[in-house]
């Protein structure tokens, strides 16, 4: 008989997570791997609870600040770049490849160089996040703006619509699914960029905490920070997906 | 009375959706003799496409039974490959696979049935030539027009020379002149091969022109409301359209389908 699919969709993943934790527990106990290499889930749990008030909360706040500010700059910036360049065919043909190259170049490589320029400064992390997310959002939005069905362009021409009005009435809504692909990718890259910037630049943040904890072989604290970083990444992705399901209702 | 070649006995079908269940077909009984050309006509949503999908064993009925050439379909007994190859299905949208050439599309059923393709190569070429499509054998579906892909869809349905040909509004999307040429081609194929043809269409004129018998159906829920014998003689040609009796059959069927008020359109 067909299990009610709603229930299956919720508890199946939970069951799998529980199985993974049990597996993790079994590996640790069976191979009695040393604490410094792979702590038991229980130990990570306790480390998370103990240190939550103190270090982990502070680092989380620092990382969240960097991620959100960086992301909230990258989204409009990417959108505007795509919007302006979509109006001129020459601009599209020249800017798109450059954006793709920027998208493919990991911005973490610039961290050591910028450190020379600015010294060790937290705003550097925000710059890295912006540089990593903007190209992805711009590329996806632009490819959404370029492809507008011919019939819809004709509709706007038939109504004698001005360029920018038809851009906002037809081109943007039509490109919404593509824009959200860029936004979801952006938030994945945002987490990665923020964490690697933390590790290279230091000055607080979850990435930095992981680096320090692992060098002091306080691996339970390090894993606790990793779990929080993972939750941050997933949370940001979920928020963007929920917003998408609200806006893109017609697909 | 002796069972006919294909018989559908008091079949009903209820589609379950999350919110509610739709009674698509209610107590349908139909029979088709061997080598007969029968059309099924009715408004969209009367379940005619569901019926031929049941004969082709794609959809299972909720109640009632379907017997084809003496074999009654049974939910847990899969059809033997010999029975499967008796059935040929032709879709409204030709849906040729763009990743195969025209000829590969035509040979697809043989590949699925595990036949030796070389054996049928000659037959494929002669069928393609029959409709003037041999020169397009190695072309890709993207390069041919709507009318041409419809012809390929028909040939694909009959490449394994099935005994029964089920056609779901094959020429619905074509303009008048192409549809008429393809109708004549279909009649020629039907005469040469003697296959049993079940022809679904919206177009009353097309049904009257082509078939020996017309089942008329109504929607909400799908029910058979008439089984009309069309005797306009063996030779069916396009100039039949102007004739008096042809017009009468069309009006009779159109009135049967009835004045559909505005709110009821699907």
């Amino acid at each position, binding site marked *: 008989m067909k299990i009610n699919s709603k229930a299956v969709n919720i508890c199946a993943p939970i069951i799998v997570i529980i199985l993974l934790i049990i597996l993790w527990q079994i590996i640790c106990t069976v191979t009695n791997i040393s604490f410094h290499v792979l702590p038991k889930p229980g130990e990570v749990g306790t480390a998370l609870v103990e240190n939550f008030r103190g270090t982990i909360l502070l680092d989380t706040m620092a990382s969240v600040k960097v991620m959100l500010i960086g992301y909230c700059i990258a989204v409009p910036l990417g959108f505007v770049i795509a919007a302006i360049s979509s109006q001129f065919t020459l601009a599209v043909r020249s800017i798109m490849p450059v954006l793709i190259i920027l998208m493919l170049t990991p911005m973490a490589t610039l961290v050591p160089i910028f450190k020379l320029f600015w010294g060790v400064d937290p705003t550097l992390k925000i710059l890295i996040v912006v540089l990593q997310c903007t190209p992805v959002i711009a590329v996806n939005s632009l490819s959404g703006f370029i492809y507008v069905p011919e*019939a819809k362009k004709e509709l706007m021409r038939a*109504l004698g619509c001005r360029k920018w009005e038809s851009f906002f009435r037809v081109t943007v809504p039509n490109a919404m699914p593509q824009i959200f692909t860029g936004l979801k990718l952006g938030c994945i890259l945002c987490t990665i960029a923020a964490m690697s910037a933390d590790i290279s630049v230091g000055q607080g943040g979850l990435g930095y905490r992981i680096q320090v904890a692992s060098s002091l072989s306080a691996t339970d604290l390090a894993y606790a920070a990793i779990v929080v970083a993972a939750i941050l990444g997933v949370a940001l992705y979920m928020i963007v997906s929920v917003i998408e399901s609200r806006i893109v209702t017609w697909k | 009375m002796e069972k006919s070649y294909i018989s559908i006995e008091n079949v009903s079908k209820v589609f379950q959706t999350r919110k509610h269940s739709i009674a698509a077909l209610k107590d349908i009984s139909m029979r088709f003799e061997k080598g007969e050309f029968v059309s099924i006509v009715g408004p969209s949503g009367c379940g005619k496409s569901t019926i031929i999908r049941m004969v082709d064993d794609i959809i299972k009925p909720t109640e009632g039974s379907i017997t084809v050439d003496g074999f009654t379909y049974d939910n847990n007994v899969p059809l033997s490959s010999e029975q499967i190859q008796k059935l040929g299905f032709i879709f409204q949208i030709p849906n040729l696979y763009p990743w195969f050439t025209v000829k590969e599309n035509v040979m697809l059923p043989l590949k699925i049935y595990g036949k030796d393709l070389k054996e049928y190569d000659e037959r494929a070429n002669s069928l393609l030539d029959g409709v003037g499509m041999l020169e397009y054998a190695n072309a890709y579906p993207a390069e041919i027009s709507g009318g041409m892909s419809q012809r390929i869809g028909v040939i694909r349905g009959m490449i394994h020379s099935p005994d029964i040909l089920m056609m779901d509004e094959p020429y619905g999307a074509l303009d008048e002149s192409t549809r008429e040429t393809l109708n004549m081609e279909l009649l020629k194929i039907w005469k040469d091969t003697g296959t049993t043809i079940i022809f679904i269409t919206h177009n009353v004129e097309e049904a009257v022109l082509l078939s020996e018998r017309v089942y008329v159906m109504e929607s909400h829920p799908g029910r058979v409301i008439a089984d009309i014998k069309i005797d306009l003689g063996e030779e069916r040609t396009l100039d039949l359209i102007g004739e008096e009796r042809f017009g009468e059959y069309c009006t009779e069927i159109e009135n049967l389908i009835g004045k559909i008020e505005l709110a009821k359109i699907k």
Partner: protein
Amino acid sequence: MSDFYTLTGIKKSFEGKGELIHVLDGIDLSIREKEFVCIMGNSGCGKSTLIKIMEGIIPRDGGEIIFDGISPGKQVSKELQKKMGIVFQGDNLLEWLTVYKNVELPLKVFGQKDKAENKAKVMEALELVGLQNYWDCIPRELSGGMRQRTSIARALVSDPDILMLDQPFGALDAITRKTLNQELLRIWHTTQKTCVMITNNENEALYLGGRVLVMSNSPSRIVHEIEVPLTYEERVNNLALNPIYLKLRTELARIVRSLDTPRQN
């Protein structure tokens, strides 16, 4: 009655693979006010191009348009576009807008801000096509017939002087098509708008049209014209048995078939 809309010597050619393809080669036609004219022709004869030129969607290479006494420049001007209601080949609705917002679109684009007035106009147009209680559905939730009726409502909302339809029912099944034909005739009869419709279906052209023009294959011109002297009452009740209609239909079928064989389709 004065000629309301006249085209003289309309020419149009497109760039094919490296050379120019002439599609329209001097189209002349004139439409009187409140008249329903159907234009027929084989696929590829340029009838869609012609109506897109009349709608001001694509520029014409040569020839003159005189619309209600004014002759627009190369590009049909914005004021004239306000006077035209256009129904496209596909229903061409904006999937993300509700039926109400789709129908309201022309009013918004023409800058009519007054909410209450817009609401009245939109609901009136929706009542005309019988979709008043579907106003908050989105196109995905509607059937093909209902979507096309929404686009007819959208064309009527700005109370245009002329209605232009480019094979509006081409993609619909025969029975929905017949019903929408009946409805379009009723709307034309009640609103007395001038209508120009492109179609490839002979029955539809004779059922709706006061005059049926037939275009030759490209480079095309208007080669035949059939007057359809049937009143609204005659058209509405069982036209299929009307002798004039049957005679005209066989004649129109003969004309369309007599056009030299079109490209292999």
